[in-house]
């Protein structure tokens, strides 16, 4: 079924559907860990942030899975400079979501493959993914793709004085 689905660069006209998926992704993270309590930011703020990311092609890669003109999956990667390490650039996947009914069709892997293709064009040879430690679905997905834990970020809420 994923054969009928095209993975392509995100366009401004996709943003409405992508915002819905971003909200779903954040709520999913909240399910795993209440530290990621969803704030429901104003739609316009999210829209502007996504439009800006689409414009800044050198800093971001945004792809969507397109099923008959409807975005049903997204991947967003941010390009980071690693001035102290080699390779000097790293693509960090920060947003990744596939609509429930399009799962189990290898669409997630297709999105990642297309991302790799884009990274190859840019000669970026390092990729990483950022997700809540307790998101076991993401953990299983990236492990299945050969990723391992390379950075840990610990956090806590400060008590109110």
């Amino acid at each position, binding site marked *: 079924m994923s054969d009928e689905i095209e993975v392509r660069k995100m366009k401004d006209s996709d943003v409405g559907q992508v915002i819905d998926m971003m909200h*779903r992704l954040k*709520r*999913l993270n909240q*399910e795993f860990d209440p530290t990621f309590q969803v704030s429901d930011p104003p739609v316009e703020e999210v829209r502007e942030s996504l439009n800006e990311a689409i414009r800044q092609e050198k800093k971001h890669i945004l792809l969507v899975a397109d099923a008959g003109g409807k975005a049903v999956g997204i991947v967003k990667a941010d390009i980071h400079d690693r001035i102290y390490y080699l390779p000097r650039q790293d693509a960090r996947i920060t947003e990744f979501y596939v*609509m*429930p*009914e399009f799962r189990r069709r290898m669409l997630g892997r297709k999105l990642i493959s297309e991302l790799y293709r884009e990274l190859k064009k840019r000669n970026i040879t390092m990729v990483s993914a950022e997700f809540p430690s307790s998101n076991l679905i993401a953990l299983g997905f990236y492990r299945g793709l050969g990723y391992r834990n390379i950075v840990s970020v610990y956090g806590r809420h400060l008590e109110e004085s």
Partner: protein
Amino acid sequence: MLDQEKEGKESETQRTDRFKKLALRYSRHFKGKINTIPKVPIRELNDFSIWYTPGVAAVSLEIARERDLSFELTGRWNSAAILTDGTRVLGLGNVGPEAAMAVMEGKALIFNYLGAVNAIPIPVRVSDRDQFISVAQSLEPSFGGFNLEDIESPKCFYIQEKLQQSLTIPAWHDDQLGTACITLAGVINSLRVVGKKISDSRIVLMGSGAANIATARLIIAAGAKAGNILMVDSNGVIDSERKDLDSMMINNPWKYELALSTNSERVKGEAVNAFRGSDVVLSASRQGPGTIKEEWVSSMNRDAIVFALANPVPEIWPRQATDAGAAVVATGRSDFPNQINNSLVFPGVFRGALDARATGVSIDIMLAASMQIADFVREPGPEKIVPTMEEWELYPSVASAVASRASELGMARKHGSRESFYKSAHELIEENRNMYRRMLEEKYIKNLPGGGENE
């Protein structure tokens, strides 16, 4: 509300209160509902040397040599454990294992009276679902089957599935599987009455708790098209784009699976949207009346089938449903026609599973049970879609269907023809009933205190 039904509701409340008072009074008197008594002759104390040591050592050694001989040389073949953690007892919620015992004893009594099964109530105190599984696994050598009872959803799905995967005896969760079986039997006969096919029917399941999730899975196995099924929960019609789907995936993957496969029309919004153009509504939802509105039933297809199964007050009164166009109405109550009651299922299912020394239960076995219950009704009519508990020969007939299906599926330790399974189940149940009657007549079972008037 119709006057007579208003009166009916009041009398139902009074009736329930009366039974509650009697149950408390009689429980104080009898101090428990079941007993264990020897079933072998004890002619003199010397016979203990046969039934106990030293003679019994030979039996132990035989079983040690071949474990499955425990089904032939001990009472394991006819013993079922009623296991509960007391987290969802009746409509009472999490009352704990001690309080659950009173209910489990009642279940054991029905198991024995209708199915001649030696059922042992075992409410357990456990901290989580995996500990429950561990306790159940430890008990496996003592029983021929487990009846899981009154465990909250969705924990009950996890426990039943994990246990059935790991055990070599049936793990039956009656709130799911028993309810699903009798509901499907009712649906089969309702569709026969109105002349519709399950494969063409649009079916709404209102309420998405354990019972309706299991029912949805079973009716799909019976031939309903998943896309023609619409599940409804407290947030409305479930569709694959609903915003709470990821939460459902994590917290209730069984419901999530149905959310993905059902509702191909992508109906959204309130329950009324699901009713429109549907053929069957199976409601296991909030008590009524008024949970299902008459105009919702009117918006269904011609010859609508409505199961309003909330107890004690159905989601819509039967008369209201028929006035609104329903051709067949079922409830969970005994004072209306078509009572959808698990007690029509589990005694026969366990009788059959135990007779075949079954290694498990499966959806195929459930289908066999449902078909047999439906076929037991010789001439289905709008007010006769399922048998009643008085028709006791239902139980050996269900038992034979279950035992022979388990045998065909390679899920039995003991094989035989359907006729032979029917004969043995019939004999066992009849003998048990006769024995019980004799014990009553001979006053080995004492009369109820105060004359025992229920009215």
